[in-house]
């Protein structure tokens, strides 16, 4: 969606005066509306509206083989699909490239760079079933139904929500099921059906996942969680990954201008503060939310 230059001018000027078009203060997030467990076929799912941005995430857990580099770690694979329902420009292969970029960022934010060491994201080590042979493979599939700005931030939020809502089955495995087959006895994996209770165990390390907060620099003003229009006004947009403890885990910059190094620290501090605040409220919500809601 492109906006007219008059709209862009107006928005830029109002940001200078600390006024945003939707009535927020500069450091406010848009209202966040979360729905958990709406896709029955998924192991975990969530839908999030952040202002007009609307994303659904479904998480599916499957048993698969580990990567050779990390034989005793589970795997996570993220995809982001820009649905044509969001805009005709995503028709056919229109949204493919952006979807790929978002998926990369999402994956980087959910999973630590060195999963075998743990920390900084989901604990993939806990998803190992038989080291070197079988692990849980988590597919995190995001579907963007509407883009009103801040898609990356929403993707991470909603993926987090879906993962908090995901339960993987408890596995029981027996060695050497096929007798007399010779050398390597194939372990047999049985997924325990536990209908009552929680339907499996929750994932570990969800609380460690950092959130990506976008900060738009509109002239001298800085706005948190910019909308589409504000993203267009901004000379640069900083994407700051911050965890619940308020630590900065990653920084990325986009936009048409650079950022003054002197302002960088202040920006990161603001991003981290905003991020930890949202994360805290999210996690508080996950705790009290009905598990595997309908």
């Amino acid at each position, binding site marked *: 969606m492109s906006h007219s230059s008059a709209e862009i001018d107006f928005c830029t000027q109002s940001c200078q005066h600390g006024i945003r078009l939707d009535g927020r203060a500069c450091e406010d997030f848009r209202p966040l509306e979360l729905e958990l467990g709406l896709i029955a076929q998924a192991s975990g799912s969530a839908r999030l509206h952040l202002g007009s941005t609307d994303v659904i995430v479904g998480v599916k857990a*499957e048993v698969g083989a580990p990567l050779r580099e990390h034989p005793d770690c589970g795997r996570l694979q993220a995809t982001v699909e820009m649905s044509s329902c969001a805009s005709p420009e995503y028709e056919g292969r229109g949204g493919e490239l952006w979807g790929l970029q978002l998926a990369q960022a999402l994956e980087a934010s959910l999973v630590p760079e060195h999963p075998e060491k743990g920390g900084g994201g989901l604990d993939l080590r806990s998803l190992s079933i038989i080291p070197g042979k079988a692990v849980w493979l988590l597919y995190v599939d995001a*579907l963007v139904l509407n883009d009103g700005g801040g898609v990356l931030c929403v993707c991470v939020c909603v993926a987090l929500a879906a993962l908090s809502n995901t339960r993987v089955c408890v596995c029981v495995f027996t060695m050497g099921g096929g007798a007399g087959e010779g050398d390597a006895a194939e372990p047999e994996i049985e997924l325990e059906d536990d209908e009552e209770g929680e339907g499996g165990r929750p994932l570990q390390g969800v609380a460690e996942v950092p959130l990506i907060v976008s900060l738009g620099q509109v002239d001298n003003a800085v706005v948190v969680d910019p909308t589409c229009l504000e993203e267009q006004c901004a000379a640069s947009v900083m994407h700051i990954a911050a965890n619940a403890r308020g630590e900065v885990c990653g920084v990325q910059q986009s936009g048409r201008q650079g950022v003054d190094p002197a302002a960088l620290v202040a920006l990161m501090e603001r991003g981290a503060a905003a991020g930890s605040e949202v994360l805290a409220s999210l996690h508080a919500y996950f705790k009290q939310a009905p598990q595997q809601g309908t």
Partner: protein
Amino acid sequence: MEYVTPEGLRIDGRRPKELRRLDCSLDVLQSADGSAVFQMGNTKVLAAVFGPHEVEVRNQMKEDKAIIKCEYAMAAFSTGERRKRGKSDRRSQELSLVIKAALEQTVMVELLPRTQIDVYVQVLQADGGTRVAAINAAVLALASAGVPLRDLAAGCAAGYLEGHSLLDLNFQEDSAGGPDCSIALHPNSDRLVLLQMDSRLPMDTFEAVLNLAQDGCRAVASFMRQRLLEHTRKLAMARGAVRA
């Protein structure tokens, strides 16, 4: 596997001629001109309509009517087993075409010459009958977008398993390999705008299944009508055009 118990109950507890629970909501998306979610049991489909707008590819323009573009896509998480399928696999392409053909009969295209209407269908959950659910969702989305419609087309499927005609098959029943007859009907004029069937069926049984599917369509149509009426009335009341 037994699909109908001796007591006449199906796997999910329905009677043979019973529809699954229907649900729908309108205007669910922000940027689309019209949108709707339609749910039949565990099948859940989202449709978005953009337009009528200018024709994008000039040489596709029709002097005497609107052209309809349709894209059917399945979310990666929509099926039981995760499957990342593109929008351009053979099945999606075929379904896009089929849905488009049914909608071309429903939308009064001749009233909107030289324009284009985009209809995007996104399957969120697939549990059998996605093509008819997609048509239902698309028709509701078109209605909410204010596109002129000839009739409220409604779709429903019926099949035949173990000597029973079954209405509105779910995924398990659908994959049993029996015949599956998907139809869409204009309830007021009683015209079939879509009819597709696979597998083998004697002619008279086919007629029975066809009639059952038609009854299903009428039930779906009255549900859609009811919901659309409520929605329209609610909006009219909210802006004070109608008193409660």
